[in-house]
C-alpha cells in the first residue's frame, strides 16, 4: 500500500490541526491520527515529525510535557498554545488561498 508523501510546507498545518481537534497527543498518536484522518493517504515519517515538533516548540506554538499513556507508559504529550492557535488560523487561510488558486488554474484547462 503506497502512501503519498506529505506535501512540503503542510506538515505544521496538519500537526496543528490535529492537536486543535484532539487536544493532547504524543508523537506516535499524532502520526497515527493524521494517517487515519487522511484515510491512509498521508504518512508522516518520524524523520520529519520530530524535527517539526521541535521547531514548533522553539517557536512556542506547542507545549510539551511528560505524562502517562492509557497503558501507564511514560510519553511526551504535546498541546497547542494560544500562539499555536493563532498560527493555525494563519496557516489554514494561507493553505486555502493557495489551494483555490491551484484549483482555478487546473480547472481552466
Amino acid at each position, binding site marked *: 500500500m503506497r502512501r503519498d508523501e506529505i506535501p512540503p510546507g503542510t506538515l505544521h498545518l496538519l500537526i496543528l490541526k490535529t492537536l486543535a481537534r484532539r487536544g493532547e497527543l*504524543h508523537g*506516535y498518536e499524532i*502520526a497515527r491520527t493524521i494517517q487515519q484522518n487522511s484515510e491512509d493517504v498521508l504518512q508522516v515519517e518520524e524523520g520529519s515529525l520530530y524535527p517539526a515538533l521541535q521547531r514548533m516548540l522553539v517557536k512556542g506554538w506547542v507545549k510539551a510535557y511528560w505524562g502517562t499513556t492509557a497503558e501507564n507508559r511514560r510519553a511526551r504529550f504535546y498541546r497547542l498554545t494560544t500562539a499555536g492557535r493563532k498560527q493555525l488560523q494563519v496557516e489554514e487561510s494561507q493553505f486555502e488561498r493557495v489551494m483555490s488558486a491551484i484549483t482555478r488554474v487546473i480547472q481552466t484547462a
Partner: protein
Amino acid sequence: MKLLGELGRRVTMLLRRRKFDQEMDEEMRIHLELRERERREAGLPADQAYTAARKNFGNALALREASHDSWGWSWLEHLIQDLRFALRMLRKNPGFTATAVLTLALGIGANTAIFSIIDAVFLRPLPYPNAQQMYLVARTGNAYGGESISPAIFAAWRKQQSSVFEHLALFGFMDDSTLMVSGEPVRIPSAGISWDFLAMTGIHPILGRDFRPEEGQIGGPNVVMLSDRLWRERFGADLNVVGQNLTLNSKSYTVVGVLPRGFTDPTFSPPYSQLWLPLQIPAASNNPGNGGLLCLGTLKHGVSATQAEEALTPSLSELRREFPKMFMSNERAHLVPLREMLNEWAGTAVLLLFGAVGLVLLIACVNVANLSLARSATRQREMAVRSAIGASHSRIVRQLLTESVVLAVLGGLLGVAVCYASFRFVVTLVPANVPHVGTFGIDARVLFFAFALSIATGVAFGLIPALGASRVDLTGSLKESTTQAGARGAGRLRGILAAGEIAISLVLLVGAALTLESFARLTVVQPGFDSRNVLTFRISLPSEKYDTQAKRTLFFDQAIHHLAAISGVEQAAIVSILPLAGEGDILFSIEGERSAAPSGEPLAANFRIISPDYFRALRIPLMRGRELTPADNASSAPVVVIDQTMARKFWPGQDPIGQRVWIGKAMGPSMSEPAPREIVGIVADIRESALTDAPGQTMFIPYAQTKWNDSESFVLRERAAPLMSVPAVRDALHQVDPTEPLTEIETMNQVVSGSLKDWRFHATMLGIFGALALFIAAIGVYGVISYSIAQRTHEIGIRVALGAQRVDVLRLVISQGARLALAGIAVGVLAAIGLTRLMASLLYGVAPTDPLTFVGVAILLAIVALLACYIPARRAMRVDPMTALRHE
C-alpha cells in the same frame, strides 16, 4: 516579545543538552514500541515486526540530531567540538605544533610591533577635537620651505580671515624658558600660540581660562599656561595654581590656565612643550622674513580649501611688492590638511617597514601552509572515515580551518608576548622626529589588530590544505595504507610553495642588504672635521639678563677663557649650530654686483657664528687668507670667513679675499646686518646639514661682531675622554655665571652618529626582518626536502639495492633542493629588480639594482638552501635497502 520568548527557550535548551538527549531517546523508544505493536497487530510475527518497525523508523541517532538541529545551536556545538579536537590533534603532534606556532609567532609578532608604530603615527585620531578640520596654511613657490610663516604674513592674512576662516592661528616653538624652581634654574621646552589657538583646536583648559586677545598684543600682560605634566611634576597638581606668579626668564608671569593631558604641539614630536605663552603679534610687521612660525586654521562652513587659498594669495603679492627680495614671483597660499602634513613628515620609510614585515608574515604563512599540507597527506584516512560517517564537505573544511585558526591564534599570543617584552628595545631604535614617538605602545587597538591578523593568517594558510583534504577519494584512501595517491600532486604544490618562500626572502634580503650597505657607506663619509675627543654642550643666554650685545660677548669671552684653562682641554670654541646638528641659512648680497644668481634665485648660504678657535678645535684646515682672531671684535672692521664651495660658486675664477658681502640685506631691515663684511679667509668644506648632502657653502662670522650671539654650542677639543671633564666644565662656567644651565651635553662623535639615526633604524629593522625571512625560508626548504625524502625511502632503497652509491643518493637529494632554490632565486631576482626601485630614495651610494648585492644575496640563499638539505641528505644516505624495501 515573541522573539524574546523564543530566544529564552533557545538558551534554556543550550544549557540542558543532556536532558534533551535523554528525553528524546525515551520519546523515540515509546514510538518505536508502538510501531512494533502496530505491525504485530497487522499480523507480522514478533521478530519481523521488530525489524520492520525499526527499518521504518530510520536512524535514531540521525533523528535525534535532526531534532536537535531545529533549535539552531548546532553551529556552536560543532565549533566547540572542533576546538576540542583541534587542541587534541595539536597536542599529539608536538613537533609540528611547535614549529608552526614559532614560525607564526615570528610573523605575527613582527607585524604587531610595526603596526603599533603605524597606528600611532598614521591611524590614531589626533588629540585635537577639531583635528579633522584643521589645515596647515603654507606657501608654495618659495624655496625656503613654505611652511614657515612670519608675523607679517600672518598679519596680512588675518585681514582676510573673516571671509573664509573660522579660526586662523599661529604656533611657534620658542627657546626653552628658564623657570626658577626652588631657587634652581630649570629649562622647560616652551611654545608660543596666538590667543585663539586653543579655540581652534577645540581643546579647553582643565583649570583657569584661555588666553585673551589683549594678551596677544605687544606690551600685553605676562601670562602663561602650564601643561598637565608640568602641573603635576613641578606644581604638585595644586588646584589653586591659577593666579600664581612664576619667574620665567627672570620676569614674573601669571599662570592663567592648565591644559589637559595629551595636549601637545601640532608637530607631535619631541621636545614636547610644557609651557605655553601667548604670541605677541604686531598688527602690522616690518619683518617679513621667515618667521619660523606655523599657521593653522579651520575653514568656515561650506568654504573649500581652494577658496581659502584664493583669498589669501593676493596678500602675498602685496608683500612682494614691498619686500621684493623676500618673496618669489609666483608664491601662492596653500592649505594642507593637518593629518596629511603629519603623514608627510613621518615619511614613507615607516610604510616601507610595514611592507617588509608583511612579507615576513607571508613567508611564515607559506611555511605553515606547507607543513599543514604535509600533515594533511597523512590524515587522508581520517578524512575518508569522516566522510563515510556522514560529514559534509563544508563540515570537514570547517573543522580543518578551526585547527589552523587555533594554531594561528596560539602563534599570535606568543608573538604578542614577545612583542611586549622587546618593545622597549624597538622604541629606542625609532628616530625621534617620527611624530607621536612618545605614545607608541601595545594598546587595545594593537591587540585587536594582532587578533584579527591571527585569524586571517589561520584562514589564509589553512584554506588550501583544507580544501584539498576534503576532496577525498573514499575507497582509494580507505584501501591504501600509504599516501601515495595524493602525495604526488601535493608534493609539487609544496615544492612551489617552498620556492615561493625563497623568492620572497630574496626580495627582503636584497632590500636589507641595500639598506645596510647605504648605512655602512654613510658611516665612513668624511665629514670634513675631526670629531674625536670633542665635547659639546649648549648654553642659551636669556634675553632679559643679557640684553645687550656687549653683555653676551663678555659672557662668551669669559666662558671660553675659563674653559681653555681646564687641564686636558686643548681648544675651547663656540659655534651657533654644530655641524650635522641643524640647519641655519641666510640670504646675502655680494657688494658691488649682484644679489641674485643669474637664474633669479637669491644668493643663500649656511650661516654660523663662531669663536676664533673653532676651526682649530675641529681641525678644519685653512686654505687661504687668515682665520678669525680675538682682534675681530665689535670695534674693528666686520669680517667673514667662507669655505671653498662658496668661493668656487660665487667667485669663479676670482679671488674672493677682500670682496664684501652683505648678509641679510635682502631680508628687510630687522634681519639685515648693519654693514657689509670683508672676506678674510677661506677654509675647507665641511658637511653642515647632513652626511648625505653635499658639503660646504657656509659663512662664518665672529660672535663678538653680531647681536645674534645668544645661543651657542661649545666645542671643546680634549686630549682624551671628553665626558670625564664635564664636572670641571661646570665649575669653570659657574665662575662666569652660576645660573646658566648646560644642555645637550654629548660628544661630537655622538652628534655625528646621531645624525644617522634614521638610517641606522632602517638598516637594523630590515636586517632583522631579512634574517627572520631567511631563517623561516630555510626551515621551509628543510621541511619540503626531508618530507619528500621520507616519501621516497622506498625508491631510494631500490636504487641502493641496484647499486647506487652514497654519492648518487646525495646527488639526488641535492639536485632536488637545488632545483627548488634556483627556481625561487630566479623568481626572487626578477621581483626584486622591480620592487627595489620603490626604495631608491632611502638608499645612499648604492643603486637599487646594484648587481653585486643581488649576486651576493643569491649566493647566500643558495648556500642556506643547500645547507637545509644537508640533514635530509644524510638521512637519505644512511638508508638501509632492506628496511627501505620493507617500508611502505
